[in-house]
């Protein structure tokens, strides 16, 4: 598609979508959002980029093959699940660490659940882009 307006807008929109997707991913545990939604939003950014500037540019901007991103995501999700084994818990039991927690303050929570959600994000992001890029190149 050859549209100067769309191309100019995409520069900002794609970036905003990526930032927004990270925001959706991180807030997901307490508010609407999460890895799945985040991944979809993030991929929308690159889909828009591909529509406006062509798949070749989009691939170059992504730097890595989208299918690799999906595979890495799957690996992260699996590791997050296996991590529980170190503590003798069942597979995929969430492990939590509260940094700087006091009696009144919860502190900064870090968890395997978040890692798992990041894995989900990358899987969705990578899979959607794998499909869309391949489809667009095919046509």
């Amino acid at each position, binding site marked *: 598609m050859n549209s100067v307006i769309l191309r100019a807008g995409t520069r900002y929109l794609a970036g905003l979508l990526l930032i927004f997707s990270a925001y959706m991913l991180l807030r997901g*545990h307490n508010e*609407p959002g999460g890895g799945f939604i985040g991944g979809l939003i993030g991929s929308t950014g690159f889909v828009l980029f591909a*529509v406006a500037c062509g798949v070749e540019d989009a691939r170059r901007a992504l730097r890595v093959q989208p299918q690799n991103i999906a595979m890495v995501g799957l690996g992260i999700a699996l590791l997050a699940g296996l991590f529980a084994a170190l503590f003798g818990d069942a597979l995929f039991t969430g492990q939590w660490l509260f940094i700087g927690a006091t009696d009144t303050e919860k502190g900064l929570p870090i968890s395997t659940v978040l890692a798992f959600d990041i894995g989900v994000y990358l899987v969705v992001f990578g899979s959607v882009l*794998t499909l869309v890029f391949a489809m667009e190149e095919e046509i």
Partner: protein
Amino acid sequence: MSAAAADQPKGNGLTGLAPAIISAALFAWFLTFTPAIGAGESLRYVIDWVPSLGISLSFLLDGLSLTFALLITGIGTLVFLYSNTYLAGHPQFNRFALFLFSFMLAMLGLVLSDNLIGLFVFWELTTITSYLLIGFGHETTKGRRSALQALFVTGAGALALLAGFILLGMSMGSFEMSEILARADDLKAHALYVPILILILAGTFTKSAQFPFHFWLPNAMAAPTPVSAFLHSATMVKAGVYLMARLHPGMSGTDIWMWTLTIFGAVTAVSASIFALRQTDLKQALAYTTLMALGTLTLFLGQESGYAMTAFATFLIVHSLYKAALFLVVGCIDHSTGTREAEVLGGLGRVMPFTAFAAALAAMSMAGFPPFLGFIGKELKYAGALGVASEPLFVVIAVLAANSLMFAVAGVVALRPFWNKPGGEMPVTPHEAPWQMWIGPVILAVLGAFFGLFPDVLQTSLVTPLVASLLGGAEDVKELKLWAGVNMPLILSIITVVAGTVLYLAHRPLRNGLIRADEATPSFDNGWDKFLEGFKAFAAWQTRLIQSGVLRSYMFATFATVLVGLGGTMILRDVGIANPDLTDVTWKNLALTLLIIGGAIVATLTSSRIAAMAALGVVGIAVAMIFIVFSAPDVAITQLLVETLVVVLVAVALLRLPTLDSDGRKWRPVDAILAAGVGAVVTLILLAVLATPLDRRLTSFFELASWPEAYGRNIVNVILVDFRALDTFGEIAVVVIAALSAYALLRTTTKGQGK
């Protein structure tokens, strides 16, 4: 055979010797149990495997399993030693040793297992290893075909066996055979006794190559000779016999058991011994005599008398000894001369003295001369046959015919190649086989003579415990003795020798007649090919029918199934339907519903792809708005995003296609009825769901547990990433696989079009 060329084979190093040493150690270990087992004990050893399903690795050592274990490890030792030389320098020897050793362990597991499921697992392991071993010469079509045939026949039988085992275990409430057999009367009186029996016999008859499943065994001779000696005469084909013997205390004594085993055993024994005489290939002749032995063993297992059981036990042991010896002898002949044709071979007695010695002893045991163990076995067979409860005359004639023919075959296999004049030029100048090869047959053949002279040794160590485990006590065990006085069995023995001699002298004309008769009748082997071809044709036909390649017919089939399945169930179950309460319908709900209906109608009627897509997008977004109205923001966001991406994807694909042709848009009443029907059924189901009170147990659990246990307030996400993380993991794995497959598919088509 490559080994025939090498005059002094060197062996294969560690992989050649280690299996022989391990089997010898196992043999010695099992031998230490003979005093305890001989004293009437039985040992049981249990490891829990899947306790929740009642499956355990439980092992039972009694007279029956000990006899088999000793045969397996003892013959195994000799066979490993033998094959180390027989296949010396074979490029795939390591593979061969692995297959054969795995087989031996599986076979040991089979005869020692007390749990039905455990036994079945080992049973199938022997099937698979046997497949690999028959197909060891996989570069020939014949080898591949024979291996596949054996796998299919025994594998199909094993499926029946598994069904039988499950029925047996369920109806008796236990998968431990020792527990099941202790309640034999319950089993025989059980309503499922006959189905269980039929299914199990289907498994044992295929495994032990009983008529009409016998045809795979002669073909299995495509395997290297040590394999034939070990698997297809002494051990694996006896697995079926073993299982029938193991279940004998619990299942025998009924008419169906007695008649089935008697008739199938007798038919197998007689027909196989006739066909044995027809063969000119020594190995094939031996294969058919193995069938005869299996038939005889089955026949005797149909009975219950002490004589029949003692005959079974003795013949089991004597057959394993002489048949393994003869197979190995044939391997030596093949190795030294390059041929196994009875008509070509001759005059080997002087060149191969040790092999000839072993062959002579083994053959005399097979023919049933005194003082060999074979003679005692034959006397007991006649005594057992005279005492059968079913039809003594029929059984005696069958056994007599089979024995006389065996006598003749023994002569053909072990007399002619060594002492007659050669019938033609042998491919390799004959020479004695290396000692590693003749030692095995010599030991086995000498054992046959030794046990014949000192039957007490065998009686106390193996036969009595074996019969005791079949009959539940040692009271009825008959004595093994060479001279029992002038009685009916002795007279029958004399008739056997006379008839056998006549048959041997006349075997050439007989063979020609048999070959003509055989060629005139349809063979099971060809029938097997026809069956396979028919099966393939059927598969091709039904694939063409179901996989038409037209998307529209797939969709039609899918939705028709949904309509019939769901609608039918609703009618049959008489599902209650709620009276929809329309009072709280707001204008928002109504507007969204109208939007969805309008979108659907436009998508159906429009002739422009882009319009149809946009209409579907409207439907999707309206659905997302319904989620928002009912406050499910996560679902709504996901739905919106997926809709957006789907529209992009479909647009990319569809924009390149031509506009919808008017032909595809014509009025199709069947499709319309189907669509309306599916819509109606789904609506009714939703109304039926509304009719039942909403179960909030899960919802309230997650509401309560989400924050304290998973530190999250968004229940949907907490469920996804914590409570049901394994499910999510499965789903994302599917997403990745789907994406990669689609990618691969798109890439291949692009290349295929040469772009």
